[in-house]
């Protein structure tokens, strides 16, 4: 059974057809890369899956349950969480408190505060930010904020995370570190993900399958190595042959 199934999703903003009948599916423990030029509807699709936007048309099933009419906080409770393209940390709280909130709510809803903070410590060590534990989130660098965004998503205990450009804007070393952290976490916590990314290196090192969007339509789907040779994809997005 597919973990996530989105069928014929359509969404219009005023005169723009942001999504025009896109279908995607995802198996358990699979990572789907979602690529496409700016304005092709990638973020819109993630927002619709996470319940932040409502689709005009289409059905979304997560673990066989229809989620397209649920509120975002209900969808998180089922174990599906999305990170933000621009990190949205709780600035007046410390890094640890940020993560603890995700543990106390999210999909796990741990009531005991001490237990939640212990779990937050564990996640901090996962992402190697123990030394930033008591720093206010507003004092973090962009790279650290992106890591925190990822950590918070993992802390919810979600089984499916939607990553919206968590790897963008990093230097090669940071990128390498974040990719390796994510790959390790993915295997240890047994999670699935949809990764929206412009950084091809992240897509090719993580994704099992790639879907390419262009102007709200799916133009290609397949293994990363096949996708880069697809003429339509090269034309729409890559411009030149990658690698």
């Amino acid at each position, binding site marked *: 059974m597919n973990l996530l199934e989105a069928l014929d999703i359509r969404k219009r903003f005023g005169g723009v057809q942001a999504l025009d009948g896109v279908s995607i599916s995802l198996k358990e423990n699979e990572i789907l890369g979602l690529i496409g030029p700016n304005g092709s509807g990638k973020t819109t699709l993630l927002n619709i899956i996470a319940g932040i936007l409502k689709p005009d048309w289409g059905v979304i099933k997560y673990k066989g349950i229809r989620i397209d009419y649920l*509120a*975002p*906080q209900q969808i998180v409770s089922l174990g599906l969480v999305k990170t933000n393209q621009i990190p949205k940390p*709780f*600035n*007046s709280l410390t890094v640890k408190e940020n993560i603890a909130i995700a543990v106390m*709510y999210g999909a796990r809803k741990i009531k005991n505060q001490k237990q939640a903070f212990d779990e937050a410590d564990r996640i901090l060590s996962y992402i190697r930010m123990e030394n930033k534990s008591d720093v206010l989130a507003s004092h973090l660098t962009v790279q650290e904020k992106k890591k925190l965004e990822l950590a*918070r998503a993992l802390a*919810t205990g979600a089984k499916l995370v939607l990553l919206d450009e968590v790897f963008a804007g990093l230097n090669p070393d940071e990128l390498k570190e974040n990719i390796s952290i994510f790959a390790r976490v993915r295997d240890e916590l047994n999670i699935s993900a949809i990764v929206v990314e412009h950084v091809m290196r992240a897509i090719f090192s993580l994704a099992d399958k790639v879907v390419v969007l262009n102007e709200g339509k799916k133009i290609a789907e397949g293994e990363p190595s096949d996708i880069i040779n697809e003429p339509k994809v090269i034309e729409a997005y890559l411009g030149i042959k990658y690698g």
Partner: protein
Amino acid sequence: MRLTVSFYFLIGILFYISITPFIFSFSQTTLILDLLIFAALAYSINFITGMTGYVSFGHVFFMAVGSYTLVYMSKVFNLYPLFTIPLVGLIGALFAFVIGYITLRFRGVYFALSTLVIALASYYIVLVIPALGANEGLIFNVRFEPLIWFYTIFSIVALEAIITYFINHSRTGYAIRAIKDDEDAAIALGINSMRIKLILFIISGTFGALAGGVFAWSTAHVYPTEIFDLQFSLQMLAMILIGGMGTVFGPFIGAAIVYLLTYYLITILPNGQLIIIGLAVILVALFVPMGIVGSLRNKIKQIKQVVE
């Protein structure tokens, strides 16, 4: 939940206030009574505006609801005012539920304006209701019982402060701070922000009505122009801004400062008290943006880190 030092400090202060009628002179006690009414209003608005950052500009509405309920019930059914207090709270809660259910869907300036509109509109509605005395308001006979007024409003303030403490130190307290910082991110982490905001708004409305009720009881009247005066709304906001938004001690300190300023300036500079309070708010916003208590708390944290 482990109680912190600040909880025992709070209990100590409350105990001290509870014995002030036996320490100070009679006239001083009535001043403290007025101060406690201000503090009750400050704590009331603190639940919604201080904690979530949703600025309620028309909070005077709840005060009016409480005043009218207490006076009307006491007058028409000839009840002893103290016995109407539970009903006053209930009516306040009911109004808060209905209003909050609609207005809390708006954010930022839209929420602030919608509460302001409700306060203004209800003033004009009251003016045409004969049962509520229309534009003349209601007067009723009360016995002069300053001690009973004092302990009623004291209990309300004590309850508000203790509830504030427990909310701030609970799991929900973290969710509330998350909502204040970034509501969308909070929702995306599974926090049911609408429910939390609505509960806080109901608590806020209930206590606002209770404070208004005691105010009307101690003055033996309710006049629409006085009770719907937006100056009260502004003063309530000034109190929590000066004292520290969302904190346990902030509303009380803010209320004391605003009350003392109002009390002393009214003789020296009639009608000038708002200018001075406005000036105080600007100074606080410039130099101690977290309010007095918020800034003190940060200083203590910094000192602790240095010492460690």
